[in-house]
Each structure stands twice: as structure tokens, then as C-alpha cells.
């Protein structure tokens, strides 16, 4: 399984390491030509969404990636990646990919002093560590959006079909459950859109 990790700015190396530990093959997306070879999944990492959104457009990556994501490419967005995927950003007319039916509020917990750790169950499984760094909050979600992790009544990780997103950073905690869940969805993706042969 080839997993593209958007490597414009932020914590992309952490995702690459995790993906490699779980037996998939990560590669970095920095320019248009990085999209030439087919791949099976996409990760949009944490960082600053303003920076990533600008570079996506200026480096000619925005339209081709949006086509792929809209076309069914399994995609995981964390923190800034959630903001890139969201349909709307509260108090901000900016929309990036706009494919995940949620509205998010940027820096919803305040400045760095508001960053925190927590724990909550992933789906019906055991608790996983959650690290929120100047995190966004999902303030509303459409009916097709399923919560994967809920903290104090607010969904902090969600799934909408082939789209996965988290307000926290599963890539910097030691627990691989979240990436495992994502890779399972990548590997069971129905054939047709598949871009490389299934593993033997």
C-alpha cells in the first residue's frame, strides 16, 4: 500500500514513521510530479492550515488532490488536515477541500496554554491517548458523519465514508490504533478506484 503524505509544512514525518511501522509504504507529496505514480491513501498532517492551504494552491496540488479525494481516495486529516477537509470554517469564509460535512472552529481551545492531553475510547474499543495542540473543534456535523472518538460530548475524530479526520494528533502519541483503522479502510477499499494491485 502506497500512502501519500502531504509534506508542505508541519508534522508529516511523524505520520510517515507510523505508516511505515504498520507495514505500508509512505511517500512525500511536495510538488505536482509527486502525484504521477498511483497511490492508495492520502494523509493531510498537522501544521498550520493557512500555510498548507496556500502552498497547496500555489504548487498546483490543490485541484488534482481534490479530484482524487472526491473520487474516493481514502484520506486521513489530522488537526490542520481536518481544517483542510472541512466543508466550512467558523467565522472564516475560507474553504479548502470542503469535502467533509463538518464545520470547524480554528484554535477553539485558545493559544498554546490551552493545549492539552486527554483519553477517550476509539469507536467501541479501548481508550486511546489524545493530544490537542492549538486544536480545532468540530462545531457541527452532517448526518453522514460518524463520530469515532467523542470527548465531553464533542466528536473529536470522525469518519464519512472514505474520509477520516481528527482534531488531535494520533501521529505523535505512541498508540497506533487510529492509523491502523485508517489503513484497514485503505486495504478494504472496493476495486475499481484502486490504483495498485492488492498485496499478495
Amino acid at each position, binding site marked *: 500500500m502506497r500512502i501519500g503524505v502531504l509534506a508542505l509544512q508541519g508534522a508529516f514525518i511523524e505520520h510517515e514513521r507510523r505508516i511505515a511501522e504498520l507495514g505500508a509504504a509512505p511517500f512525500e507529496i511536495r510538488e505536482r510530479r509527486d502525484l504521477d505514480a498511483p497511490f492508495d491513501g492520502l494523509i493531510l498532517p498537522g501544521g498550520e492550515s493557512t500555510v498548507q492551504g*496556500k502552498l497547496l494552491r500555489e504548487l498546483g496540488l490543490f485541484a488534482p488532490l481534490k479530484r482524487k479525494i472526491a473520487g474516493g481516495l481514502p484520506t486521513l486529516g489530522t488537526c490542520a488536515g481536518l481544517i483542510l477537509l472541512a466543508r466550512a470554517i467558523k467565522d472564516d469564509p475560507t474553504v479548502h477541500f470542503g469535502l467533509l460535512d463538518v464545520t470547524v472552529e480554528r484554535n477553539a481551545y485558545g493559544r*498554546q496554554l490551552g493545549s492539552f492531553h486527554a483519553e477517550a475510547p476509539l469507536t467501541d474499543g479501548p481508550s486511546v491517548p489524545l493530544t490537542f*495542540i492549538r486544536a480545532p473543534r468540530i462545531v457541527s456535523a452532517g448526518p453522514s458523519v460518524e463520530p469515532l472518538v467523542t470527548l465531553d460530548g464533542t466528536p473529536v475524530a470522525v469518519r464519512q465514508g472514505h474520509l477520516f479526520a481528527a482534531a488531535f494528533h494520533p501521529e505523535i502519541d505512541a498508540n497506533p490504533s487510529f492509523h491502523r483503522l485508517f489503513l484497514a479502510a485503505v486495504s478494504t477499499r472496493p476495486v475499481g478506484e484502486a490504483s495498485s494491485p492488492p498485496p499478495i
Partner: protein
Amino acid sequence: MDNRYELNKNLAQMLKGGVIMDVTTPEQARIAEAAGACAVMALERIPADIRAAGGVARMSDPKMIKGIQAAVSIPVMAKCRIGHFAEAQVLEAIEIDYIDESEVLSPADDRLHIDKTRFKVPFVCGAKDLGEALRRISEGAAMIRTKGEPGTGDVVQAVRHMRMMQSEIRRIASLGADELYEAAKDLRVPIDLVRYVHDNRKLPVVNFAAGGVATPADAALMMQLGAEGVFVGSGIFKSGNPAKRAAAIVKAVTNFNDPQVVAEVSEDLGEAMVGINESEIQVLMAERGK
């Protein structure tokens, strides 16, 4: 504190691959954010002007910093003097995202740095070599940057510091486990930090380049030498076309390994900051605080 320290190191991880720009007004902050800065450093005077003005350089007016915090959505950093923990307390009180305990300002303590473990907000500190970096980390710094000579537009010192740090990291990594105690003594740092460097071949925190970066090629150079991101101070707002130069440096940091991209963004940037050679300056700020 451990929990907080982890969160503070994590914020630096989110800044990686990005450019942190010095700004002196809300308007400059907005230009920097629009150009793709991943954070801004709020200060009253950029280093080139601090150097020109002479005298004692202190923490900026909190009101001025708050104006910049209100203007942008990205993290805002600010500088305090080396050892001036009361200035750091003020910056924490206004909920700054990162404090730079900086040699660019006049040192307040000629012997001690701030005990950064007593703060909830993160600190970035400058370092010329591995020993300095690990000493700052043992005091609680959650991020390190080179101590390239600020306000000069001359990248030579940042290069020297980054090369020195990388070469010392390689040397530590090559030592036997029983040799690490002596290395810790030589570096004047705790053994656990030396072990971390030995086992991981890197600093335990994010390491940025700072000081004298003025062009996209300067930024690409520092990234290829192992920097995880870049601070640009006087280089942007002392140049002919700040918005364009800022955006160009951001792209050069992302695609530092593709000379084609660096070439494209280097075209037509207007005048770079004039610059002063290392040998022409009176005050070597990098010699402050070791």
C-alpha cells in the same frame, strides 16, 4: 511539568517545515501570515534596527504584542532577555505561544539562563553547538535554533552553528555506551540527554535555523544542512518587496531539495537587505549566553 513540556515540544513539531517571521506591526503580521508564515515573532524593532540603534534592547511593549496576537490566527512568539525571568512571566501572562530567550536583546543575567521548567509556555533558545543546545534543553527549552548573527543578512554563522551541531551529533552517535559519561562531562550536560542524541542521532527537540537568512537559497541551504525550519528576521521587512520575498522563502523551505523550485521563486524579488559582513560588526550577539 512533563505533560506540559511534551505539549510544548509538540507545538514545535507542528511548526516544522515552516518559516517564522519577525514582525513589528499588526500590518506586517498580516502580510507575513498571508505570505505563508507558520508563526510570527512580535518585536518592537527588528534585529537590524536594534543593531543600528545600539543601547539596551528589552522585551517589547505587551500592548504591541497583543495587537499582533489579535491580527493573526497563527502562533505568536516574543523575545525576552537572557535570564530575565520576570519578562518571561509577563509574556506568559499575555498568553504568548512561544518565548524566545534571545541573545538579540541585551542579556539581563551574564551567568544564568531562565529556569524554563518553571513556566507553562514553551521556550525556544539559541545554540552555537551541541553543548549549548543540550544545556538549554536541560533548562527546559522545547525548541532550539541556531544563533546566526541577527540583523546582518550574513548567513555564515548560522551555517557554522548548524554544521557544528550536526557534526557533534554524528560524533556522539558513534561513541560506545561507556564513552557517553565522559562526553556528558565535556559538554556539561546531563547524561540522559547525551544518551538520547546517541540513540536517536538528533536533538530531543525541534531545531530551526536562525540569523542572517535573507534569500530563498539561504533558506534552502539551511534546510539541506539539517534545519527543520527557518526563522527570518530582518531579511524580509528590510528588503524591497517583503510580501514577495516572504512567500518565496516559504516555498524554498518546502521544496528545499528541488533547485528548480528555488530558482523559480528567486526570480525578480527586488533588492535583498543590504547586509553587513560578519567581520564588519561591532557586537557579536552569538557570544551572549552560553
